[in-house]
C-alpha cells in the first residue's frame, strides 16, 4: 500500500519511465549484439577463411628448398620431389584432426590439346570420398575448397559417378578459346600418353585457373606416368589466432620449455597444426599461408577491441541517460519527497521504491533490448559474415549484470539527492 502510494507520487510520469526503459533497451541491445558477435566472430572468421580456401600448404621438403633457392614460380616443373597420395588420410590422424576441415592434393602438368595448342592440367580431388581408420567419413576436394567458383556450364565433376575417371572441367577462358561446351569430347596428350575425356563443367574462377583444365588426380598421374604422386596439398584448418607463444614456437618449437611446448602443441595455432602435419606425413613441409593467417589474427583482435569499446561507450551512455532521467524525476518531485519525509517516511522506504521501480523498468527494457540486440547480431552476421550468429548463453548473465550495474550507477546521483533532501528546505511555502 505504502509502496503503491509512494510509487504513485514519484512515478506518475509514464513517459519518463518509458524513456528510461528505452534507454536501457538501447544499451542492452548494443551490449547483447556486440558481445554475441564478438564471441562468434572468431569462429566466423575461421569459417570465412575456410570458404576462401586453404590456410596451410603442404609440399615435399626438397621442392620448397629448391624453389626457395632458385626463386622459381609454381608453374615451372622444377620440383623433383613428390608426396605420396596414400599419405593424405594421415592428415586426419594428427592431434588436431577435428580442426582439419578439408584438404585436397594437386599435381600439375602440361598437355597438348586437339588443336595442337598447349594448356595446363591440374589433377586433384573434387569430392573424394574417404573412409578413415577412425571410422570418420569425409568428402574432401576442390568442390568445397573452391566453393566460390562460378560454374557457368554443367556441374562440378562428381567423383562418385562412373564417368568421372574420364571427365575434366575446363576454365571459362580456355573453353571460350577452344570453342568447347559441356559434353564435348576432347583428346589430351601428356608426356606419357593420351586420353579422350568429356567436359563435365566449365568454371569461372576469376584467376589463372580459367586458362587450365581441372581433372581427377588419377588421370593426370596416368598422363604423366607419376602414379601415386602429388606435388602439394592444400589444407583448410580451423585455427586459433597466433599470439606471442605461437610466434616463438613457429621459429623453433624445440627451443620451448616443455611446459610451453605442451601448451602450444595442444592449442590449435596454425604453427602447431603445421608441425603436427610434418610429423604425420613423411618428407613433408607444411607452411601457413602467412598473410591471411596473420591478418586474420590482427583483424580479429581489432574488431573485438572495437566491439568492446562500443559496448562500454553505449553502456556509459545508457548510465548517463538514466542518471539524467531519474535525477530529473526526483528533482521535479522534491517537494513531495520532502513532505513524505516530514510525515515520517524513512529514507530507505523512498529510495527503495525508486530503486525497485527503476530496476523493474530496467528489467523490461533489458529483456526487450536483449532480443533487439540478438536481432542486431543476426543482422551483422548476415550482412558481414553471411551467416547466422550463434546465440551464446553466457551473454545473458553478462548483459544482465551490466544492465544492473548501469542502472544502479545511473540511479546513484538521484538516491544521493533523496538522502540529502531536507524537508525544511523544500517545504518553504509558496505553491
Amino acid at each position: 500500500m505504502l509502496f503503491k502510494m509512494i510509487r504513485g507520487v514519484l512515478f506518475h510520469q509514464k513517459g519518463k519511465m518509458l524513456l528510461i526503459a528505452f534507454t536501457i533497451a538501447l544499451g542492452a541491445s548494443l551490449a547483447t549484439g556486440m558481445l554475441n558477435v564478438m564471441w562468434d566472430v572468431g569462429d566466423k572468421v575461421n569459417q570465412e577463411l575456410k570458404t576462401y580456401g586453404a590456410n596451410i600448404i603442404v609440399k615435399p621438403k626438397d621442392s620448397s628448398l629448391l624453389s626457395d633457392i632458385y626463386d622459381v614460380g609454381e608453374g615451372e616443373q622444377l620440383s623433383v620431389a613428390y608426396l605420396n597420395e596414400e599419405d593424405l588420410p594421415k592428415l586426419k590422424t594428427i592431434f588436431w584432426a577435428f580442426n582439419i576441415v578439408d584438404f585436397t592434393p594437386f599435381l600439375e602438368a602440361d598437355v597438348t590439346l586437339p588443336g595442337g595448342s598447349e594448356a595446363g592440367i591440374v589433377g586433384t580431388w573434387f569430392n573424394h570420398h574417404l573412409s578413415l581408420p577412425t571410422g570418420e567419413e569425409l568428402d574432401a576436394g576442390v568442390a568445397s575448397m573452391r566453393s566460390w567458383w562460378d560454374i557457368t556450364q554443367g556441374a562440378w565433376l562428381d567423383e562418385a559417378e562412373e564417368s568421372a575417371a574420364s571427365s575434366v572441367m575446363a576454365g571459362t577462358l580456355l573453353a571460350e578459346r577452344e570453342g568447347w561446351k559441356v559434353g564435348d569430347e576432347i583428346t589430351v596428350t601428356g608426356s606419357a600418353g593420351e586420353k579422350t575425356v568429356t567436359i563435365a563443367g566449365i568454371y569461372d574462377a576469376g584467376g589463372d585457373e580459367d586458362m587450365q583444365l581441372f581433372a581427377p588426380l588419377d588421370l593426370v598421374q596416368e598422363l604423366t606416368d607419376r602414379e601415386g604422386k602429388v606435388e602439394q596439398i592444400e589444407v583448410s584448418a580451423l585455427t586459433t589466432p597466433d599470439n606471442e607463444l605461437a610466434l616463438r614456437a613457429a621459429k623453433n618449437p624445440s627451443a620451448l620449455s616443455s611446459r610451453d611446448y605442451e601448451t602450444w602443441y595442444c592449442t590449435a595455432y596454425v604453427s602447431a597444426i603445421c608441425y603436427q602435419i610434418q610429423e604425420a606425413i613423411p618428407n613433408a613441409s607444411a607452411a601457413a599461408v602467412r598473410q591471411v593467417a596473420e591478418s586474420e589474427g590482427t583483424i580479429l583482435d581489432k574488431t573485438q577491441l572495437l566491439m568492446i569499446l562500443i559496448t562500454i561507450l553505449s553502456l556509459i551512455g545508457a548510465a548517463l541517460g538514466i542518471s539524467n532521467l531519474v535525477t530529473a524525476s526526483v528533482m521535479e518531485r522534491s517537494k513531495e519527497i520532502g513532505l513524505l519525509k516530514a510525515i515520517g517516511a524513512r529514507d530507505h522506504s523512498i529510495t527503495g521504491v525508486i530503486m525497485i521501480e527503476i530496476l523493474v523498468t530496467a528489467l523490461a527494457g533489458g529483456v526487450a533490448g536483449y532480443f533487439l540486440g540478438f536481432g542486431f547480431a543476426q543482422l551483422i552476421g548476415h550482412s558481414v559474415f553471411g551467416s547466422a550468429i550463434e546465440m551464446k548463453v553466457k551473454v545473458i548473465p553478462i548483459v544482465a549484470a551490466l544492465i544492473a550495474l548501469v542502472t544502479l550507477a545511473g540511479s546513484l546521483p538521484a538516491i544521493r539527492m533523496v538522502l540529502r533532501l531536507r524537508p525544511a528546505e523544500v517545504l518553504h511555502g509558496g505553491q
Partner: protein
Amino acid sequence: MNLEASAVEKWFLRGKSGSNRFFAVRKTSLTLESGKVCVLTGRSGSGKTTLMNMMAGLLTPDGGKVILDGQDLYAMPDDALSRLRNRMFGMIPQGADVLPELTVMENITLVQHIYRNRAGSAFSAEAEEGGAGFSSERCEKLLEQMEISHLRDVQAKELSGGERRRMCIARALAGNPKFVFADEPTSDLDDENTRIILSMLRQAADKGCAVMIVSHDAEAEAYADRKWRMDAGQLQDI
C-alpha cells in the same frame, strides 16, 4: 506531555563567500503544553517557520536542544526521529503541500501506512492510549468536519486552495498526534474557512493536543492560550 525547546538557535550563512552568519532564530526557549494553543506572530522573515521546523523535528538547530519527555530529538537516530514525527506530530506546512496524484483519502491515510507494524514500537502505545488512534472512521469524521467528504476520491491536485488547507488539517490530525504544528494555516482564506480550521485546531487542543500555530490572522489570537511574537529571530511573550 511537553515539548520543550531550550536555547535553540539557527543561523544561515550569507554573503558572497558565505562568511556572514545570519541568525534566523536567536537563543530561544519555549514549551508546548498539552491542551494549549500557542499562536506565534511576527513579520515576514522573522524566523517563525524556522523555529517551528526546529520544534517539529524537521530542522536541526545550531545550538540548544528540543526535548520531548526528557529525550533530545536531535540526538535520536534519523529513523527513530522519523517514526516519532509520524506517531506524535501533525504537520501543516506553510505551502499546504499535498501529494497531488493521490486522492484526498489517500493523502490522509498515507500517514498511517508509512509504518505498517504499529505494535512493538516505543510510541505506538502512547499514540493510541490518548484516543481512537488511527481508524477509517476517524478519517471519515475528519473529512466531514472539514466539509470535504464529497471530495474523498478526488485527486489532491484538483482541490481549491481552501479545500487543500482543510485537507492538510485533516491529514495532520488523522494520526491523532500529540503535537500539531500549523504554519499559517489560514492565510489567504475566507472567514468561513478560517473559522472551520481554527475551531478544528482548538478542538484538538481541547482533547489534549499541544497546538502551535503561526499566523498573522487576528482571529487566530482569539483561539490562543498563549501568544508569542517573533522579531528578528527573537521571541517575545505578549
